[in-house]
């Protein structure tokens, strides 16, 4: 490749690194999650959304740059010792079998967190779901010390 091409390629790569897609959203209002039903969790506060892909009305992120992303999702649950709780990544409404994490809620305010890489294409719609089987509807927990959140960080093509 000519030197000019190498420099331009390098410049584009640096630009990608310096301006890579980043999303971080938090939940500021608790959500009532029905018993034993995977439910879209609402996160209405966007802390950072570099590529304006997040819709606070639908709590969904539409991917603007294809590539591998690091996903982290965490849900805090109200105190209830029955059953289990989980957090799960969905892409285009399909539940990820890898990005799911389940906890047993033995104490106060249990948290279910899942984190890992996922490949996303432009236009993919990303959401975070939660499920609990306490026997009835259960609130996600929000206060000054606990805010559920999820994030996406572009890693590479």
């Amino acid at each position, binding site marked *: 490749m000519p*030197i*000019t091409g190498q*420099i*331009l390629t*390098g*410049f584009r790569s*640096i630009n990608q*690194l*310096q*301006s*890579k897609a*980043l999303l*971080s959203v*938090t939940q500021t209002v608790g959500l009532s999650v029905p018993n034993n039903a995977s439910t879209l969790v609402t996160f209405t506060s966007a*802390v*950072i959304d570099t590529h304006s892909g997040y819709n606070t009305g639908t709590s969904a992120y539409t991917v603007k740059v294809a590539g591998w992303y*690091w996903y*982290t999702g*965490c849900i*805090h649950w109200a105190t209830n*010792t029955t059953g289990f709780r989980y957090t799960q990544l969905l892409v285009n409404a399909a539940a990820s079998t890898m990005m799911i994490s389940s*906890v*047993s*809620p*033995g*104490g*106060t*305010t*249990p*948290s279910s*967190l899942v*984190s890992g890489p996922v490949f996303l294409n432009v236009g993919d719609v990303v959401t975070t779901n939660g499920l609990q089987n306490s026997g009835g509807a259960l609130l996600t927990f929000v*206060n*000054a*010390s*606990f*805010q559920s*959140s999820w*994030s996406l*960080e572009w890693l590479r093509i």
Partner: protein
Amino acid sequence: MTSNLGFLNFTRYNFYDNKPILHVEQTVAQSVPNTTATAITYTTVVVDNYAGYSSPSYTVKVAGWYRVYGCIHYVSNTTGSRWIRANVNSSGISSTIIGTAAPTGICSCVMGSLVPLQVGDVVKLESSQTSGGALSTQVGSGYNSWFGMEFIRCP
């Protein structure tokens, strides 16, 4: 123009080849009081390329978005719950907290979150537990708690 572009790329590449990263581990057990948010001491430095760490805190040298992650292991005690979170400039960050019920055996709390930081910000991990009394962290036998930070991108 071609050579100037090359020089700028080299400078920026140098930064991303050596962006701030921290990883420290706890190798000395610590007693955490009951129901008290306590700064966790990680005294073994694995990597700290910008020399920002002095236990238990990291002073930010480059502004930007960071991934702050960490884990604390507690010795076996089945009472109550445990949590861990990031603390920036003496304020706990509510969007980073992770809580778990105390299981049978060693209890681990793991957190990881994106945090915007300015130069001079002081970052640490803090934890609390509700076992009813002071509780020791678990060190050894395959368990070392850890704290890390990774620069992600400019503000």
